[in-house]
């Protein structure tokens, strides 16, 4: 798939990853990763533990650089701009590209303060505007009805699933374009998981979603595209139904049929 060849389709490309390599010290975690990610699609990243899938999405918003020993080579273009360029400000990138983590990580503050954390640090002070943003974001995260009467209670009183949707609301409150999700349901019960999956279906109308998942059924249910990672390499990247019905690579087939992983 060459993105540069076709200008018309290029506008649809959010991320263009080119020969990305990444090392933790001397251990190589990503090898020549090359793929495009399209707007308003859900892209699932699957693969066994330690295959580099989490590392990969953490590279997309450069969160991976918080680990001091990381080195990278290759390029990641976000709307045509190389995110590793000196002129790219990570703060801007991470505002446009939000992230939801494996374990729900609300701040030890009220539900309201959690949601408006982003808008506040970007300088919005008006109480009225903040309240509006909180309501809209919580509604988008399908949490409003459950928390509208306890906006000022501590977020730690919410259930795990609610906390995770709160974290999604907190990301949505800064109007991102892309939402990265690193195994967002692996710490949740089946009902909460289902709610998050429904939410992902809603969100893809507005946002581009890249989700790492351990759960292949989940990848099948929610994603348009699936990338199979193994030992830091992209083994296969295709439409999800193709990956699950007619995988081209033997290793993909072995993995999705449960022969290893």
């Amino acid at each position, binding site marked *: 798939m060459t993105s540069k060849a076709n200008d018309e389709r290029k506008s649809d490309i959010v991320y263009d990853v080119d020969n990305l390599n990444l090392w933790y010290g001397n251990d190589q975690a990503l090898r020549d990763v090359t793929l495009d990610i399209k707007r308003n699609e859900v892209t699932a990243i699957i693969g066994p533990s330690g295959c580099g899938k989490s590392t990969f999405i953490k590279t997309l*918003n450069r*969160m991976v650089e*918080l680990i*001091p020993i990381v080195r990278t080579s290759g390029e990641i273009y976000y709307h045509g701009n190389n995110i590793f360029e000196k002129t790219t400000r990570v*703060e*801007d*990138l*991470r*505002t446009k590209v*939000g*992230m939801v*983590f494996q*374990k729900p*990580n*609300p*701040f*030890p503050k009220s539900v309201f303060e959690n949601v408006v*954390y*982003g808008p506040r*640090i*970007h300088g919005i002070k008006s109480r009225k505007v903040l309240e509006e943003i909180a309501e809209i974001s919580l509604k988008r995260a399908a949490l409003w009805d459950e928390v509208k009467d306890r906006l000022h209670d501590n977020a*730690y009183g919410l259930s795990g699933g609610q906390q995770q949707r709160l*974290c999604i609301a*907190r*990301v949505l409150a*800064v109007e991102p374009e892309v939402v990265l999700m690193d195994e967002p349901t692996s710490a949740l019960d089946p009902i909460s998981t289902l709610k998050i999956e429904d939410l992902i279906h809603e969100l893809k109308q507005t946002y581009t979603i890249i989700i790492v998942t351990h759960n292949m059924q989940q990848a099948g249910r929610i994603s348009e595209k699936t990338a199979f990672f193994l030992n830091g390499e992209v083994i296969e990247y295709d439409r999800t139904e193709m990956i699950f019905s007619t995988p081209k690579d033997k290793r993909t087939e072995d993995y999705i049929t449960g022969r290893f992983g």
Partner: protein
Amino acid sequence: MANGSGSGKYEKLAIEAPSFQKRTKRRILLDKVAGKLFSLSIFFALAVLCILLYQIVSKSIGWLDFKFLTGNLSMDPYKAGIRGVIIGSVLLMVVVIPVTLLLGVSTAIYLEEYAGKSRLRSIINTNISNLASVPSVIFGLLGLTVFGRLFNLGSSILAGGLTLSLLVLPIVVVASQEAIRAVPGFLRDASYAIGATKWTTVKKVVLPASLPGILTGSILAMSRAIGETAPLVVLGIPTLILRIPNGLLDDFTALPIQIYYWTLDTVLTAEYANLAAATIVVLLVLLFLMNSAAIIIRNKFQKRY
């Protein structure tokens, strides 16, 4: 499990079960003896403390009254009061608290959040821990050279306060570093992932979460500062100040200093021993209050994640 198919056979243990039980009896006995020994050592410490307290309190009875707390210093033991001494100690804290909090917490933030994992950082870290165990007399000499002589502050409250600040700064830095380190990484990640800068993250996430720990450590450091004698003696705090200090550049005397001088002069006037005892009680009450404050803050604001 998968590759050990040949060696997985069941083998009998070499020792028979009953011999285990014999050992159990012995182990339980040993456990009881150990418990008794440990309780004996705490009893020893408590006994010494009680004797000390009894001696001090019994000597101070009849001397520690309102007049003693509010009166001015005097050569005459029956007229002497420690108002000026208490004011001296309070003014010392007025210097020590802001200086150590500001410098100590800033240093801790830099070392934990900003400085990378460089070799220099680990050298600095080790040396801060070493500084915390340097004898206080050495800090007194440093204070005398730098603040007393070089900055020409003499034996003023400012000179004394800055010297004590240097003394407890390492303690505040180490305590703050530990409190900051205890803030879970996933909270920082949440902030960074939303486009926050380092300073925003420190200000809005790290500091609020680590404040109880920082305050507890700092108050304990302050109570060390308020009880320090040696560095002030080295600075040359005058033996007897009849004037009450009313500015940071005035000469002063503080509670531990006064206790020291009165105890020294007991050979001349026997009643000075009672004055020293009464002053010790005042200092102990002050320390007790500060430590209680530290415990209350820790219990009240401690956050669980």
